[in-house]
């Protein structure tokens, strides 16, 4: 009786059907359906295509200048982690000649931001990039947990949004950096275009799709290299590249109206996956009629580069939005406080835990 070697269950070659092959290279097994156009791609083609598209966006819009110091707004979430990885990768591959710094803002949300900042610190080690952290507490003497205990959970995004935007600029200015790069993706941008139309925010309508935003009075410009990158593709890329990111959503409630727009876009994507870039295309082509001048009406003209009378930060009004919000907060601050009181810490976290309780 001749000996038959047992089959090797581990190294057994798998047969790939022709219909399973990648639609671009036709030579490797497709692993994903690309969210942008539903084409079936293999891992190598997907990663190459994703990286090259971002490189093309950077080059076509002339985002970086050689020798420029660039701060990446790093929150530890998927977008900013992929952004930091991508900029380092592309900078090495295509030699942009830029210096990358990670810039994080600690809003003071216990149970959320402390964990995500730990991720940023790990990223710093992994990518070998310098990291700077600025906190709301240092800049404004308020943490988000304290703000929520005073102003309520419904307004959390208003305060957080205004303060974070300003903190990034202040942080960059302190480090002598004039360019902040953020991980806003195509989904965020499409959502904003829709919301500006739905809310009638005419002032922001034309500018909502700009890849670079800069005010003549500010030395700091912002850019969004992920303008055309789908959120789902960012997540897939992070997954395939095994990137270390923090995936928990903010413990405070998301803005309710944005939630409705997000749900609407999810439904649209089921019918036409390209709708996200289609909305951005539309957004780029929205132009406003010239305003009819009304001699009788006293028009307060918006001056680009106007500064806040209190803090000196850029503001379209006499006093900037952050100072106005701070003034309101100070009025509501408790006159007497218990020493070492931690009751406000992690308020959102506790609320979330309570919500999940069942009897």
């Amino acid at each position: 009786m001749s000996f038959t070697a047992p089959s090797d269950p581990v190294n057994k070659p798998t047969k790939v059907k022709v219909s399973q092959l990648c639609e671009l290279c036709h030579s490797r097994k497709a692993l994903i359906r690309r969210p942008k156009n539903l084409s079936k791609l293999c891992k190598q083609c997907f990663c190459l295509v994703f990286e090259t598209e971002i490189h093309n966006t950077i080059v076509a819009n002339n985002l970086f200048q050689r020798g420029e110091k660039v701060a990446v707004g790093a929150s530890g979430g998927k977008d900013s982690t992929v952004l930091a990885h991508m900029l380092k990768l592309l900078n090495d591959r295509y030699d942009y000649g830029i210096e990358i710094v990670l810039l994080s803002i600690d809003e003071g949300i216990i149970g959320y931001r402390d964990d995500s900042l730990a991720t940023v610190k790990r990223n710093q080690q992994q990518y070998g990039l310098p990291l700077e952290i600025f906190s709301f507490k240092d800049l404004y003497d308020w943490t988000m947990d304290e703000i929520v205990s005073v102003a309520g959970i419904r307004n959390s995004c208003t305060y957080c949004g205004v303060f974070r935007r300003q903190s990034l600029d202040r942080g960059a200015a302190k480090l002598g950096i004039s360019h902040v790069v953020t991980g806003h993706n195509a989904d965020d941008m499409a959502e904003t275009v829709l919301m500006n139309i739905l809310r009638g925010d005419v002032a922001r309508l034309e500018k909502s799709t700009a890849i670079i935003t800069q005010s003549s009075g500010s030395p700091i410009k912002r850019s969004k290299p992920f303008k055309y990158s789908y959120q789902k593709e960012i997540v897939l890329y992070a997954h395939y590249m095994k990137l270390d990111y923090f995936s928990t959503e903010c413990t405070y409630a998301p803005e309710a109206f944005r939630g409705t727009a997000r749900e609407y876009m999810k439904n649209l994507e089921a019918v036409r996956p390209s709708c996200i870039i289609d909305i951005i295309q539309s957004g780029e082509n929205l132009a406003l009629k010239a305003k009819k001048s009304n001699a009788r009406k006293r028009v307060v003209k918006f001056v680009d580069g106007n500064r806040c009378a209190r803090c000196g930060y850029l503001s379209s009004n006499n006093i900037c939005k952050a100072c106005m919000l701070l003034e309101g907060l100070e009025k509501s601050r408790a006159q007497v406080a218990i020493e070492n009181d931690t009751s406000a810490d992690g308020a959102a976290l506790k609320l979330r835990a309570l919500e999940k309780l069942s009897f």
Partner: protein
Amino acid sequence: MECQRCSASARNPATVESRKEKFCDECFIKFVSTKQRKQMMKDEYFRNLFKVIYPFEKEGSVSKILLPLSLSDSGSLVMLDIVHDLLLEQTKQHNNRTGFTVDVLTVFTEENVSVIKERMESLINEKMSQLNKISNIFNVHFIDVNEFFNNASEVSTFIIDNENFEIFSKSKSVDDSNILTLKEILGKYCLNSSSRSDLISIIKTQLIKHFAYENGYNAIMWGHSMTKLSEVIISLVVKGKGSQIATFLDSESFDTLNNKPCKYKNLYPMKDLLSVEIESFLQIRNLAQFLINVEETNVKPNCLIARKSLPSLGQQKLVKNMTINEITNKYFQDIQNDYSNIISTVLRTADKLTQPKSSMAKPSQCQICQSKIYTNPSNWLNRITVTSPYPVETTEEKYLFKQWQDSKLGQSHTHYVELLNEIKQGASNSLDVEDSDVKLCYGCLILLNTSIKDKNLVWPKVDTMDITANATNKNKELSQILDQFEINSDGEE
């Protein structure tokens, strides 16, 4: 509950509640009619169109208005009812004279031709008989949707290069063997309901505009309500046609068709009215009986106080089977309770838009939807999408690639490549691929690229089209149908 609009001495019981106000039937009809008439008198051009001008015999004193009527949409039916009342009023006040004549145009398909005929007959006999006796004030026309294909002497095949999104086209003349039909186009090319509905909408709009152009009308009165307009605006944004919003809403300039200036302006007289108000009007005036496919139309719970029952919505569609417009409509319905003013905000915002600056070397028009092109869509898409693969490296990968090439899948791909090459070759002989030769707008390019089978579509060449002149000669069957359905001013067939 009493009507808040009646005089204090004789308040009728309220039947409708809208915009936080209570109305009786009569006051509500007045409210809706006034809103419409206000739009009809919005500027000097339209005021002169609709009012009776003396001396009456002067040439051009009676203007010609085209009113596209869709019996599956309550907006245009309610608009017709109000216009009918206005015409009756004018005949009474001015000794059977009116400031304008109305031509109602209904586009029909093979499937709904008999039901349209029946409903139109009863509508004319029951509601419009009084006006119909006065000659030439009120006429009804029918157009077969296939006229769009029958009357073009040439058709173009558009194909998208899947590597660089370049659009290529090839034209050929039409003979009896290759006349297209709507059924064929929808069945052969469309991959989903959204693309089908987009193409139908383009065809119907083009037919109506061609009819208006060729018959020298002064205005087209579209029956879009505020809700419908907002739905269209947001859907245009979603379809990548945001640049067309300003032109779509423009009622100040004369329209252009295939680069030719037209004598008509587009008017949306129902733009101040919500769809729920139109539905209520429909119920009060008992007009719903003339509608077709009511269960398929978006009849929403209305604001009638006593008579809450309306035709049922039918079975709710799954989201993936809905069109983009239907999803948008559903979104508005869902958020209307929490954000009540959103519909008017969308329309108000869209009214502030103008045409964007064009980056094209020469003015171009989309050869499918006829809208103006402002940026080269292929270049834009090419800039943000990479289609080159990761190189084939290992022996196994090379083996799999060979297998793919030899397979049916590879062959069908070869077929697409062959078609593309054939059209490309034809194009390079006659045309340079320059900005001036951009053939489709971004929205239609995306439609072809994502929702049309094999990324190619055959479409009639609009500049070779003549909707009315030779229509009856070309197609005997059609002429018979027209004879059968055209209702003359005496209301006889």
